[in-house]
């Protein structure tokens, strides 16, 4: 039987922990991603938010936006939760758990920007949230198709067997792209008006890392 690390996709095995057929594992690849997530969680915990410079229209005047402390605390909590969810998605060895973590990242992403009272930001967050909600259909659909065709959701078991239908893989990727906010930045850049570098950065960060992990999953299974 072919194992994950016989596939020459993601480097050596660093660690694996067997819970029945579900095996959370660290390869060089996922280990590096997880370490990076931890660094970013630390930055989100210890970094103060930026104070954005705004230009007053019609003149040369500019001013720094004030940071509202309770809102900042909420954003920080959500950013840390987002980092934790991303870490979970990096570590897990189960496809359904991965989709759950992806949805959790989606929820916390909405939470991060929700603290901002700015109408434009809330509008963007709402539209984004609707897309993220719709993305649960391909995400769970992909996981369910994998379960239905192979009878297993463990990446460890499915690795190298080549039995997962292409449609399920495509649905997984589509779902992750929907959950991650990054593609929507292009249409909804207003979200940058929300307060704070480490927090809004976390949104972008989590969606990129989810994308990186789903590529690994799709190549392995």
């Amino acid at each position, binding site marked *: 039987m072919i194992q994950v690390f016989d596939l020459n996709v993601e480097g050596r095995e660093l660690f694996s922990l067997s819970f029945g057929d579900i095996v959370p594992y660290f390869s060089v690849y996922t280990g590096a991603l997880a370490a990076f997530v931890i660094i970013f969680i630390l*930055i989100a915990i210890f970094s103060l938010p*930026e104070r954005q*410079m705004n230009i007053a229209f019609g003149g040369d005047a500019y001013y*720094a936006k004030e940071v509202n402390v309770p809102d900042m605390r909420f954003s920080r909590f959500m950013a840390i939760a987002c980092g934790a969810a991303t870490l979970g998605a990096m570590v897990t060895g189960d496809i359904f758990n991965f989709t759950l973590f992806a949805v959790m990242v989606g929820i916390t992403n909405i939470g991060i920007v929700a603290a901002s009272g700015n109408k434009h930001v809330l509008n963007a967050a709402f539209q984004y949230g609707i897309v993220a909600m719709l993305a649960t259909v391909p995400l769970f659909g992909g996981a369910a198709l994998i379960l239905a065709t192979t009878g297993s959701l463990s990446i460890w078991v499915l690795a190298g067997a080549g039995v997962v239908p292409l449609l399920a893989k495509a649905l997984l990727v589509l779902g992750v792209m929907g959950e991650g906010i990054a593609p929507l930045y292009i249409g909804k850049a207003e979200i*940058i008006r929300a307060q704070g570098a480490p927090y809004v*950065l976390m949104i972008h960060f989590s969606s*990129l890392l989810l994308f990186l992990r789903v590529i690994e999953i799709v190549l392995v299974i």
Partner: protein
Amino acid sequence: MIEYILAAIFAGLLLHGIHRKVIARVQGRPGPPIWQEILHTLKFLAKETWIPKTASQGVYVGVVAISIGLWVAAFALLMAGESLLLLFALYVLHKIVEHGIGLASGSPYTKFGAIRSVVSAASELPLLSSVALIYLITGSLMLRDIEAYQVINGPLLLPALPAAIALYMVILSKIHYGPFSIVEAKELVSGYWTEHFGVWRGVMNAAFGLKTFVLLYAFVMIFIGPVGVPVALLLVFLLMISLSFVCAATPMLAPYDSVTVQTVTTALVACYIIYLGVFA
């Protein structure tokens, strides 16, 4: 390790200098001396350094450290012949660095640079498609396996030509003064790193030199194969000059044109991959 890293940073900065020189000569200007970027970096290191009061301090400093750590990791990965997928991941994470640097300071210019960096996320997709194509051809993503494959079957450049073109586009989109470098266009002052000065700028200059070297060396490793360090360095040099010619001859594209070109490249390579998967 450290001696190789410092040498690579030096080589990368020298390549930047050569890049500027070639562009200038193509455009009929004398141009700066080729060690200009090295001097630049040293000069920035000796400048007064502070943190803007509006900045998010942790991100402002942390992201600079991350940028250098990221490319040191990529360099170590090349030396160890580790997974190409991980190189792709580090390249994608560089987007976080650009975004983070842009958002950290609170300045509107850098913020625009950061948003443009996200808009040009399409520039990562060609690399993904070339990774996929190489996996399809060699059956492994380990750089050492790819090199071993090339020792037996000859350079990958011809069989994987679309992948090579895609990777060339990727490098082109990360090089300074290129047609795709909308993130540091002059209408945004210096783009995302406008507010990083002094030591931060110097360290980032070093990181970006390392980045250029790593990307070019990865290109040689993946598509030409193991040729020994002197020949590889020569090929890196030639590659850099060809990139400089492209940069000198093309205007900077508008953001949406740039994204369109990158997306179309990805789509073409993806079509080629599907063609290979179905007919070969």
